[in-house]
Structure formats: C-alpha cells, structure tokens
C-alpha cells in the first residue's frame, strides 16, 4: 500500500491488482463494502456478509445532514422506491438520492434496523457542497459506474455474480472501483469534491472508532463463527476493543478509506461555507428511476433489477427469470397484434443461455436478455416490428412500480417554499393564503426590473407546474415587434394551494418542480407518440420562460440535432427565432448577463454553442416543399427565411441551393408561391427590380380570361405578401403595372380590376392608403397623368356612362373605315412625364383608387359605380386601419345581392360574378352563391373548393340550395375526369389473353395462334387443329383489389382532397376494386360507405385540426386483409404533427406486411405539391414512395399495379 501523500503518486506498472484487492478486502478497520448505488448483486451479497461480521456500527455514503431520513427510509411500512431530495434554501440543487430494494445502502439500513445496529451517514454534508464541482453526478460513483455503451460494471460484477459466493462479489466490486480509481488518478485526477468527501468520510469514520487497532485475528475469527448466537450485550462489549464498523460506500472510494489510504491526497481547500438546507423524502417510481428518464442517479431497467434481486434473494433460478421475462415480452408483442409465440420465446431463451455459456457466465444477465430479444424477436425490422418489441421490452423491464412513505413521515418541500417566495416577491394571495375573489392584473417589466424578472420567472414556473394562479395575457405589440413587458392576471384559489401540494412530488423548489413537470410532459408526449418538432419547440420555449436552463440546453441540442430532420419550414423558423431570442438574452428566465441573474433562482444562462447555420441550411432544403402551397403564410415564411439569411452572420450560407430552389419555385410553384418567389429573387439579388416590374406588367397583360385572372390575383397576392412594405416605400416595382394601368382600355381594365384588387387586398387598409398616397406622388397630382384632378361633377353618372359608350361606339365605327397604313414616328418618351397617356373613361388615378380601395369620395361618377361594386365585395379590408371610418366610402351598399350581381354583370361582364361570388360568400355574403345559376356555372375545381370551404358555416337551409350547385359541379368534374382517366385503367378493366385455362376461350387469338395447323378436308372445309389454346382472363373477379385512400383533411379543402374523392368514385365503379376512403386530421372518419357518391363524400368531410398521419395509417392497417392485393394511397402534406418515428413505424409496418403503398404530396392537375420535404424523404426511406401526381398519372399507376 502506498503512503498517505499530498500529491497523487505517480503510479508504477507494478501496482498489482491482486495485492491491492488483498489490502482492501482484508481491511477490517473499517470493513469495506464497495458498491454501485443500485446493484442487485451487491444487495444480495450484503446481508450474509453482515450476518457473519456482526458489525457494531454501519456507515453509509449519504450526506451527514440527510442522515435523519434513514429512519424513514428503513421504516418497516415504507415501500421503495423512495428518494431523498436536497436543495439549498434559495433553490440550488444539492443532491438527489433515489433508493430501491436493490440498493445496497437501503439493504444495509434495513439490516441495521432488524439487528438494532446504529447507522451513520458519513458523507460530506450536502449543505457544504454548493459551488463545488460536482463532477456531473450526485453520488460520484454513479456516473463512473453506470457506464455508457459498454456497461463494464455489468460485465465485471453484476453478470458473474449469479450463484457466487458473497465474498467474491465483494472482491469483484472492490476491484472494479480500484481499477476505476487507478484510471482516474492516471487520467484527469480525482475531483476536488470527491477528495473533500473522502476526507470527510475519513474523519467521521475516525470519530466512530473505525480506525482503532484491530483486535487479534484469532479472537475475531471465533467471534465471527459464534456471532450469530451472540447477544447484543456481547456486541457492545466488543466496542471497547475498537468498533467493528462496516462501511457501505461507492467502490470508487474504498481505496481512500483504508487506514493508510492509497490513490488519495487531502483536498486542496476545505470549504467551510454552508448553505441552508431543505430536504425531503418523496415517494419515487420506477419510470423515474430508469436511467433514460432524465432524472439523476437512475439505473437502466429497474423492474428487471428488482426481479433479479428478488429471484436471487429467494434463491430462485435466474435462467427461469430470463425465460419468464421473454415470455412476458412475447405476450405483449402478441397483444399488439404481431405474431410472436411460445417457440419464439423459447428460441430467444435458448440464445440467452447459449450466449451466457459462451461468455462463461453461470446465468444470462441483462445484456444477454437484450441481445436475445434483438436476435430472435425483432426479425430484422428495426422500425416496424422493432418498435413494438422495444416498447414491450420497456414495459416488462422498466415497470411502473411506485413507492410509498411510511405513515408519519415528516412532509416538507414545495408548498412552504412557494409561499415564502410569493411573500418575498409581494405576489398577491400568498401572505394571507386566503382565496382571492377578484383576479388582479399586474404589468411586469422583467427586462428592466430585477424584481419583475423574478416575479415573471416564478409565475412562468408555476404555470409550467400546472399550478392555476397566473395567466399571461396576450399583449400584441405594435408592428409585430417583440413585446418587452408582460401582463399577468393572478387569482389565488384553494385549488392553487392543492395543486401546489401535488406538484411537490416533483421537487421541493419551484425550479425543480417546474423542470420535473416539463420533463414529465415531454415523456408523456413521447409515450403517446406525440413528441414532434412542433411540440418540442413549444416545450423548449416554455422551459426557457421557466428558466430551466438544463432542459433548454438538452432540448435545443435535440432540436438542432436529430430532430432537425423532422422539422417543417415554419418550425425551423420558429426555432431560429427562439434561438435568436435566447442568444440575445431576451428570454426572461435565461438571462445572459450576470447582473440579471439571481443565483440559485434565476441562473445566468450560458447558451450552448449552436449551429444556427445548420438550422438554416435545413430550412433552405425544405423550401422546395412549398411549391404547391396556396397559403400566404407559406409565402411569408419564405420571406422570413430570406430575412434571416440576410443577416451578416449568415452571409453566403446555402446561397447556391437557395437560388436554385427559388428558381424552381418560380418555375413550378403555384401562382401564390411563384409570385412570392419572384419577389424573393429580387431580395436575394438574383434579379433587378426592373425585371420584376416588367414581369408584373406581363402578369397583367396575360390576364385575358377567367383562369388567367385568377392566376394574376394569386400571383399578386404572393408577391405583395412579401413585398408589401417595399411597394409602399419604393413603388419602382410597380412601374410595369403602373404602365399597364395607364394604357389598358376601359374594357380591358375592368375585367382585370377584381383580380388586381384581390391581389392588393393582401395589404392592410392603412397600408393600401399609404401606397395610394405614394403612388399619387409618383403620378403627380398636377401631372397630365393625374387626369381629371379630382373633378367632382354634378353630371348624373348614367349620362356619363352613356356618353362614354357613345364615344367608344364612334371610335369603333371609325376603326372600321379603311385607312392608309401610316408609319408612326418612333416617339420615345424622354421623361416619364412626357409620355402620352391615353384618354380613358376611367382616369388612371381613379383606377388606382379602385385597385387600392380608397378615396372613393374623390372619384368620377363612373368610377364610383365600379368602386362601389368592388367595395361591396371587399368591405374595409383588414389589419391596420380597417377599423377607422375613413377607409372606404360611407355610401349605402347594395340593397340586395341580386342588384349587386346585376351591377357587376353590367360593369365587368357576366363571368366575373362567378369569380367573385365564392369570395363574397367567404366575406359573409352567402347569398351571392345562391345567385349563381347551377346550369350556367362553369364547373371548376377552384369554385368547388371555395363553395365547399363554406359548408361548415352554412345552415341547412342554405346548404340545401347549394347542394344543387355543388352536385352539378361535382358531376361535371367527375364525368370529365372519368373520360380522361378510364383509358389509363383500360388494361385493368378489360380481359386480357392468357395461356392459363380460365374456361373462356379467346377465339381470335386462338385461331391466329394455330393457323399453321389448318387442314382442308375433302369437302373443302377448313379445320383448325388447335394446339395452343388462348383464354381470356376473368374480368369479374369480385373485390379482388383493395384501394385504401387515406386523405389528410387537416388543412383546407384542397384540390387534392376533391380529386381524391372523385378518384374514389371513379375507382369504385370498377367492379373488382373495393375502395375505402379514410379522412383524417387528428381524428379519423371512415367514409368508405360514400365512395361511390363524391358529393356525399365531400359534404361529409370536415376540414381542420392537426395532422396525425400515423393514426390514419394505423386505422388503414386494421382494414387490410390481403396485403399483397391492397394499394394504400396516402394523400397528405406529410407535416406530421406527432412523432415522426411513429409515422415511420406505421409506414414500415405496412410496407413490411406487403401492402403496396404510395404517398401523394399532391393530387391535382398541376402536380405541384406543398409538403414537408424532410419528413417525406424519411417516409420514402421507410418504403413508401412519395410523389405528386395528376389524377391521370395516378390512374396509370394503379392500372399498372393491378394488372
């Protein structure tokens, strides 16, 4: 043994383990028992050793100031698992000590209780640990012994322990600790905290007389033999010779506790600072004890450990326990509907036993059990079956056992802490602790006032704990700027107090309890397969508010790590925003500056090194998924992404890819997205504003018919959604449009005006007004282009209109007269102002007033008519300024929808009302739709989409009348589609020739095939001797194929949904295809009974809610009876709101069952999908191809599959 030394001795290779173990195990003063905190092997071996030793005192590695809990821990009526939690008065975490039946310390405490031997807690008091480097773990030994991948404790001590002599287990454990210590000393050295703890343990052992000279060996050995029969009086006698102290300590510390310690030195400084301690004993549960739960000082698979301990205690057969576990696991797998039977369990047991034999173990351990399950039960399917097997294994191995406190155990913990804190923070309700009758609002300024910061964080933590006390009121800051103050509504009720008591289970301070609650929430979500990127971003934001720095760090790591692949663009942007706020120190709970922190309560948060660039590059990669979107939010997300990328710190990131993607969007995107992408091109500098302005002009030119006008409106909406503010300040973008608006003749302009107005409607009312004003500056109030200079005339409008008509007619007549072709001189305008502006019935300024919906009172009468008709549709707009009275005109609207329709027909032409009717209905004028003549309407998907989107808000009376309209549109569309689609499935519908005998002869082919064998007999009759017979396949095979359409209706009534319904109808008309239609959001509706009637189907579908694809697929899977003849088509944007793993699992399960799967990101005539690229990619990897198809392509694909 080495001398007690101040410095760590340089170890020579001659350190002989055998000698070292001889010393450690042979030491009797004190007698050392090195353990791992949770260890069935050590727990089993301990009682017989203690029985033999008959110690006069037992020393346990537990902080001295927590020693009083041992009485309650070891109480006969207490049931493990239990945990001792210690915190300092102001909240710093000082330790967490869980105990289970298989914890050697608890075994020792119980033994001592039964034998009336005193137990002493000898470790460094928890109150003196604050501020010391805790080495990452509470018990020190734990982190070292728990191991990571290679569980070396398991290999060296636990597994070989079965059926072994107790003393050998003790030696193995001591050897393990010694080896670790040797490693530590040779490596980074033993931590100061450990040294200080060991110094303290030594001093307490000294005090207990443990180091007193041992009594003669001979005397002791006789005592050992007789010990069991000795009376306690005799044991007391022994103390005079020197106490027999048994020290149950982490095996790492053993070498430091022998009388002449080795591998040890005195700690550099003995800190005497103490903090006030609050501790409590709480009932614990196996799921928290599991090392994977995130709670400290756990162990993997507690239920398995418990059973292993029980089996060995009762001298049972460990091999039998392994088999039993395997049987339970297979039963659970079977309960989930997968095949797994007794032979499987037997095969697994066989593997476990053989592996144990190959590795020289007496019985299989946890490792062999896990390996056997992997090999024999998962069948190589890691995602589908594997997940179920893993879940079953977890259920058996982790368990749900809960502990109970003995009656009379002192309670302490959260409630007193919360009340003290509330009082300190002067929060209402606390001092009196009486129910408040009226809620009280307080406004906090947490970023400036330290007190408010503490209040805010305390309230956020209580919210995280689920304590009903404060609600944060939404405060909308002007201009979307982050709000700096917060407003809380507080109400203290008896429920508040009750819930505080409940929340105490998770910790003794608000900080602990809220972290625990958040963690539990994450686990609950994970268990329900609901933990996706969305919920995790939300949880992280909550954790940040509640100042749970550890959780934030952990979850951010997860989000920027493995979950990055599941996030959609919107989530990624939310994530970046959160990261930016945290880094900027704007999150109240996570101050960046030391001045803002409140040590122990609101700790300064050192933000982890995060790769924002990484998140961004993933976001860039998801951009393509927006191609099919119709939503302005997506367009804005695109702009937001570009805005983030423009920051100096992200300069040049993913440029090539982004440029390429944006170009793709311009090419293939929907009008909304293409329009937005055009503007983005300007923002990222790949295009000049001039080109954009010309492009926009081109859009206006192209809007010659209803469809093109719809495209124009959408493109404008997309472009303006992004560029609105730009347009306002720099209307150069609008030059092209300005020119068109100037030049278009009245009858060209009027049909387009609804589309233009529609596009600019994206801007808020006030914003449109500002735009009009800045355009006015450009147009020049007094300029010739201002035309008419706000003349207010008294001529009746009818007359003016008539005059204009007459003018036009005259002009047309003049045009009909043949004239010599004149070569116009090239009049290139020298300045903008000099360009001649054609005369119009509606002056340019009025045109812009119509488009932007302002200044009605200054319009010419004819313009006013148009403007009134338009305002009827759009009202006062939205957003900023829409509530002011100065927006639109104050004139009366149209008395009836009919009058309005007539006006629109007259002013704009009669197709235009059709275009605006659905929109009008959306704005609350349902009557507009009823004005449409079902027989006259031109059926289009868009119209159907809009009409259907209304049905939720309509009464049955309205709906009944609309039904005719919808029916006509649907019928028309289905007929049209069927004509296109049927031929593609022809092969599947008509019989094909085959050699296989079906009983139906294919005569022409048979004759053709046997022409070589014709014979002409005497009567000149030709006889064919058929050698090869060719038959027709049977075409009427009933319900031979199953097509399951699983349709996502979470978003809007998109074309994909409509087409799915129509395809279902067309497919169901094929006699041997059985069609199922399942609509899902977070709920599932099986609409299979309506498949043949798309009208009913579409009316039944109710849109909205989140997306839970896995649930839809799970249901669909339950419908599958003949996997090999089932086609499953999932129509979805793949923005799974729940766990992506769950989704992949379902896909795998389907694919593995042999179902032919296809994912459709879009099913419409454009084939441009809007979907989550990243998740779709993972779905593809799981075996379900994802595509965007037109109905025709889908029909072809199905035709090929069922051929």
């Amino acid at each position, binding site marked *: 043994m080495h001398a007690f030394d101040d410095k760590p001795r340089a170890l020579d290779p001659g350190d002989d383990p055998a000698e070292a173990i001889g010393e450690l195990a042979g030491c009797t003063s004190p007698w050392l028992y090195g353990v791992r905190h949770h260890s069935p092997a050590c727990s089993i071996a301990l009682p017989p050793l203690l029985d033999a030793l008959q110690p006069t005192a037992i020393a346990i590695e537990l902080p001295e100031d927590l020693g009083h809990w041992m009485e309650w821990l070891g109480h006969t009526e207490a049931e493990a698992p239990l945990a001792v939690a210690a915190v300092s008065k102001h909240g710093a975490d000082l330790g967490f000590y869980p105990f289970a039946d298989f914890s050697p310390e608890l075994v020792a405490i119980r033994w001592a209780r039964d034998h009336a031997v005193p137990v002493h807690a000898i470790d460094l008091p928890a109150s003196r640990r604050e501020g010391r480097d805790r080495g990452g773990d509470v018990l020190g030994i734990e982190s070292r012994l728990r191991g990571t991948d290679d569980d070396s404790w398991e290999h060296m001590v636990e597994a070989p322990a079965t059926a072994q002599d107790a003393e050998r287990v003790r030696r193995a454990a001591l050897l393990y600790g010694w080896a670790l210590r040797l490693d530590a000393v040779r490596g980074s050295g033993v931590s100061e905290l450990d040294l200080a703890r060991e110094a303290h343990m030594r001093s307490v052992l000294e005090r207990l007389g443990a180091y007193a000279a041992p009594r003669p060996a001979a005397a002791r050995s006789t005592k050992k033999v007789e010990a069991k029969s000795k009376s306690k009086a005799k044991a007391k006698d022994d103390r005079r010779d020197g106490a027999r102290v048994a020290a149950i300590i982490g095996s790492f510390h053993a070498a430091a506790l022998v009388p002449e310690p080795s591998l040890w030195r005195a700690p550099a400084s003995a800190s005497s600072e103490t903090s006030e301690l609050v501790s409590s004993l709480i009932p614990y549960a196996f799921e928290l004890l599991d090392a994977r739960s995130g709670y400290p000082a756990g162990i993997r698979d507690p239920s398995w450990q418990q059973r292993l301990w029980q089996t060995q205690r009762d001298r049972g057969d460990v091999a039998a326990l392994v088999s039993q576990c395997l049987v339970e696991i297979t039963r659970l797998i079977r309960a989930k509907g997968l*095949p797994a*039977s007794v*032979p*499987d369990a037997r*095969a697994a047991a*066989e*593997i476990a036993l*053989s*592996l144990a034999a*190959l*590795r020289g173990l007496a019985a299989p351990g946890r*490792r062999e059990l896990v*390996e056997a399950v992997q*090999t*024999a039960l*998962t*069948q*190589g*399917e*890691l995602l589908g079956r594997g997940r179920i097997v893993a879940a079953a294994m977890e259920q058996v191995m982790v368990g749900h056992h809960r502990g109970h406190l003995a009656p009379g155990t002192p309670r302490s913990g959260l409630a007193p802490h919360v009340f003290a804190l509330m009082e300190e923070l002067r929060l209402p309700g606390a001092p009196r602790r009486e129910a408040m009758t009226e809620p009280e609002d307080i406004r906090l300024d947490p970023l400036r006032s330290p007190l408010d910061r503490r209040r805010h964080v305390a309230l956020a933590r209580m919210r995280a704990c689920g304590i009903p006390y404060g609600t944060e009121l939404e405060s909308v800051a002007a201009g979307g700027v982050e709000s700096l103050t917060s407003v809380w509504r507080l109400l203290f009720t008896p429920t508040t107090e009750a819930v505080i008591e409940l929340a105490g289970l998770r910790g003794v301070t608000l900080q602990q309890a809220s972290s625990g609650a958040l963690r539990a929430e994450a686990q609950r979500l994970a268990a329900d397969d609901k933990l996706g990127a969305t919920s995790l971003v939300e949880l992280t934001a909550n954790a940040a508010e509640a100042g749970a720095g550890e959780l934030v760090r952990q979850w951010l790591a997860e989000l920027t*790590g493995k979950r*990055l*692949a599941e996030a959609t663009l919107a989530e990624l942007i939310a994530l970046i925003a959160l990261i930016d706020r945290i880094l900027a120190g704007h999150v109240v709970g996570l101050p960046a500056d030391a001045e803002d922190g409140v040590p122990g309560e609101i700790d300064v948060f050192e933000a982890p090194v995060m*790769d924002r660039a*990484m998140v961004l*590059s*993933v976001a860039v*990669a998801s951009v393509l998924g927006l191609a099919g979107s119709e939503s302005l939010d997506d367009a804005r997300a695109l702009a937001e992404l570009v805005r983030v990328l423009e920051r100096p710190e992200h300069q040049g*990131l*993913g*440029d*090539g*890819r982004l440029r*390429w993607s944006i170009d793709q969007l311009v090419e293939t995107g929907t009008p909304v997205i293409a329009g937005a992408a055009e503007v983005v091109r300007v923002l990222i500098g790949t295009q000049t504003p001039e080109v954009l302005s010309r492009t926009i002009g081109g859009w206006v030119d192209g809007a010659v018919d209803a469809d093109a006008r719809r495209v124009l409106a959408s493109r404008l909406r997309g472009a303006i959604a992004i560029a609105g503010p730009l347009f306002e300040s720099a209307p150069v973008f609008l030059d092209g449009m300005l020119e068109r608006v100037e030049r278009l003749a009245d009858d060209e302009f009027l049909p387009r005006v609804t589309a233009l107005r529609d596009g600019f409607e994206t801007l808020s009312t006030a914003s449109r007004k500002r735009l009009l004003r800045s355009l006015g500056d450009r147009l020049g109030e007094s300029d010739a282009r201002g035309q008419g200079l706000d003349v207010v005339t008294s001529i009746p409008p009818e007359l003016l209109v008539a005059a204009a008509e007459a003018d036009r007619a005259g002009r047309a007549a003049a045009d009909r007269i043949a004239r010599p072709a004149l070569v116009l001189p090239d009049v290139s305008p020298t300045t903008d102002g000099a360009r001649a502006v054609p005369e119009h019935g509606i002056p340019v300024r009025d045109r812009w007033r119509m488009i932007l919906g302002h200044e009605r009172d200054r319009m010419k009468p004819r313009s006013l008519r148009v403007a009134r008709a338009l305002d009827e549709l759009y009202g006062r707009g939205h957003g900023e300024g829409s509530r002011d009275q100065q927006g639109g005109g104050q004139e009366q609207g149209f008395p009836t929808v009919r009058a309005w329709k007539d006006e629109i027909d007259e002013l704009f032409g009669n197709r235009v009302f059709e275009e605006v009717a659905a929109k009008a209905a959306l704005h609350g004028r349902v009557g507009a739709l009823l004005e449409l003549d079902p027989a006259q309407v031109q059926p289009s998907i868009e119209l159907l989409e809009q009409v259907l989107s209304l049905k939720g808000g309509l009464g049955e009376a309205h709906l009944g009348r609309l039904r005719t309209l919808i029916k006509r549109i649907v019928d028309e569309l289905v007929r049209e589609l069927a004509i296109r689609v049927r031929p593609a499935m022809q092969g599947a519908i008509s019989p094909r020739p085959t050699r296989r005998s079906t009983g139906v002869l294919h005569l022409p082919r048979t004759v053709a095939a046997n022409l070589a064998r014709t014979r002409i007999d005497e009567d000149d009759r030709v006889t064919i001797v058929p050698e090869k017979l060719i038959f027709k396949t049977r075409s009427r095979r009933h319900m031979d194929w199953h097509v399951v359409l699983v349709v996502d209706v979470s978003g809007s009534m998109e074309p994909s949904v409509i087409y799915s319904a129509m395809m279902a109808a067309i497919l169901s008309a094929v006699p041997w295809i059985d069609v199922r239609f399942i609509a899902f959001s977070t709920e599932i509706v099986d609409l299979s009974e309506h498949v043949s009637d798309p009208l009913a189907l579409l009316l039944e579908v109710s849109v909205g809610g989140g997306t839970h694809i896995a649930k839809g697929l799970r249901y669909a899977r339950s419908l599958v009876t003949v996997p090999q003849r089932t086609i499953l088509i999932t129509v979805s944007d793949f923005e799974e709101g729940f766990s992506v793993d769950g989704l992949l699992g379902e896909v795998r399960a389907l*694919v*593995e*069952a*042999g179902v032919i799967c296809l994912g459709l990101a879009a099913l419409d005539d454009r084939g441009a999908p809007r979907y989550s690229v990243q998740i779709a*990619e993972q779905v593809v*990897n799981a*075996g379900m191809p994802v595509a965007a198809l037109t109905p025709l392509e889908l029909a072809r694909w199905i035709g090929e599959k069922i051929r």
Partner: protein
Amino acid sequence: MTKKRESKRSEEAGTQAPPPEQIYAAELEFLAKWDDGARPPSWKLTPRAVVTFIIGSKNEALRAGGSAQVITEKFVGDRALVERCVVTLAGERGLLLVGEPGTAKSMLSELLAAAISGDSSLTVQGTAGTAEEHFRYGWNYSLLIAKGPHPEALVPSPVLSAMRGGAIARVEEITRCLPEVQDALVSILSDRRLSVPELGTLEPAQRGFNVIATANLRDKGVSEMSAALKRRFNFETIAPISDLARETELVRRRAKQIVADAGAPLGVDDAVLEALVTVFRDLRLGRTVEGWPVEKPTSVMSTAEAVAVASSMGLAATYFPSDRDVARLLPEYLLGVVMKDEPKDRGKLLAYWDATVKRRSEGDARLWKSLHELRRVLEA
C-alpha cells in the same frame, strides 16, 4: 445475379476470389488445435474458435501445441454480434443476416460456413429465377430416362448436400426468390428432413446442418418473406462500420489488395482515403462527423462502394500516371456512385459541397480546400 465478392489475395495465380476456407486454411487448421473443447456435432471448430477466427486475435499470437499464430481480423464489427451468430447456428433456427447493401453480410456468412463446416460453397444464389429445385433437388434427365427414378439420377441441391453432410448451407439474397420458392425452406428448417416422393425416401438432415441466409434491406426488405419462414430464422442486422478509423483502415486494406493484384502499389495517400471515407459516411448517415446534417442521396453509399472508388482511383493512378493529384479524381468518381439512381442526387451532392466541404475548407485542411475548388466538376 452477379454478387460482388471481395477480392482476396489469390494464392493460385489466375483464380479470382478463392473461398475463405482455402485462403485461411492455415488459420483454420491452427484454431482446431488451439481449442479442442467440446464442439457441436459436425462442427470443425468450437464456437469460441469460430468467433476468434472471424474477429481475429487482436494481433496477439495464440499458442497451441508448440506453434503460435496471429489470427487476422476478417470481419470488422461487434464481437457480440458474431457470438450471437455462432450461438444461433448451433441451435435450431436458421440465421438471417439483414442489412444495407455493402455491409459484408455475404462475407460474414462465407466465413461462418468456412469456419464451422470447412466449406463455404454450399450456396444458393437467390434471384427471381430461383426455382424450388435449387433448394430441394433436381434430376439428371438422361439418367432418369435411362434408369427410371433412381437415387443416382437425383441431383442434390446445395441445401440437400449440406443436410447430408451436416454442414452449413448458405442462401444469398433470399428475399429475391419468389415467396412460394422461399417456402420450400420452411419444411426443411422445421422438419429437418426432405422427402423425395419420386423415390419414396426421406432424406434426414445430419446433425450440424443449418442455414445462413442474407437479405438486402434496400431491394425488398424482409416483407416478401412469409411469417412462417421468418419464424424459422433468428435475425441479425449488420450495421455499417461505426468507427471512422476502422472503416478507413478497411478501405485502405482492401483497395491496396485490389491494386496489388494488378501489380502496383496503391498510389492514394491516407489523407485522401480518409476524406473519401468521411464523405461516404456523411452521405450514408445523413449527418457529418461534425454533426451537421446532410441530405442523404438515394443511392447506396456502403463501405464496399468506398472500396470500389478507392481502388479505381488507385488503378487510375497506376495505369494513367500523370502529375495531377489523385485527389482531383475524387469528385468525378463520387458523382459516378451517387448519381446512380436519381438525377436529383446531383443537387444533394452539390449541397454537400456547398455546406460541408466549404466549411471544412475554411479550416486548415489543404485537402478539403482543393476538394472545394473542384466543385465545378459536379456542376457540369
């Protein structure tokens, strides 16, 4: 139907890829002496010796009967995995090795068969054209016509031969066989005998008989297998090599062999090889060594492909020597591997160059700098 095999140093000049029992004859002989403990019936080695044969003796010389020998490492992977394989083969179920292409499933199955039975040639290669005869037996038709049904006219399949000899039969790519053909194995694996109704006889399997099958997760997965057949197998999933250094070492070793077979030294230095393996791993895992995410291409990026690229580069350097740096060839070959399935993959490789290679080039590594300059090759 051609299944890649690793090229091994051929002892007889001219033979491509001799079987492992021939290459490692000396090691096998030695191991039989080294552990003379109890062995399962018909096994040539004890289970422990089989494991040692496959994962090697970690450069330590083993001693037996006066001689000492180092057992080379043949399969780079987890010891526990090999242990499970061996244990399974000694039991009642067959062993099914599944994994991505290029994870050395076939090699492992060859090595197991060579070590256990001393014969890795009893192999059925699964294809869509594999018929039941390949698992059962066929007939020599001229003998059949001449003598009628007679044991001599019966042509045994590799599986039947293995049953007769108590040996290990191998089925490569079992999922590519039609399901009804696969099911011929069900009765063989459960009853352990094969009836020949034409002769009215029953061929019992000798003790020691077992089957190793391999299946490729990329092609069809195990979905095509019936539940009945699945239940007759224990599954082992072979993962790509998890450790960069070991994978680099493996690629270097294999590429060196291939180039050496062509009679030249490998002219690709370790830095280039490491870069190559790093790129392959990043693209395979969808995550770089540094933890940055990468868009995964659809094509297979296994170690075997990395070996192919490395040896192609080596051969190019040998046959077309020039003063150009070999590293310059890397992007082209990479494109050749990545662009197999989908043109979209070019975009992904480009994005990889955009982000990951660019970042690494910002560090000190000269190699990454020059690789980043080669970006144009990819854009073409």
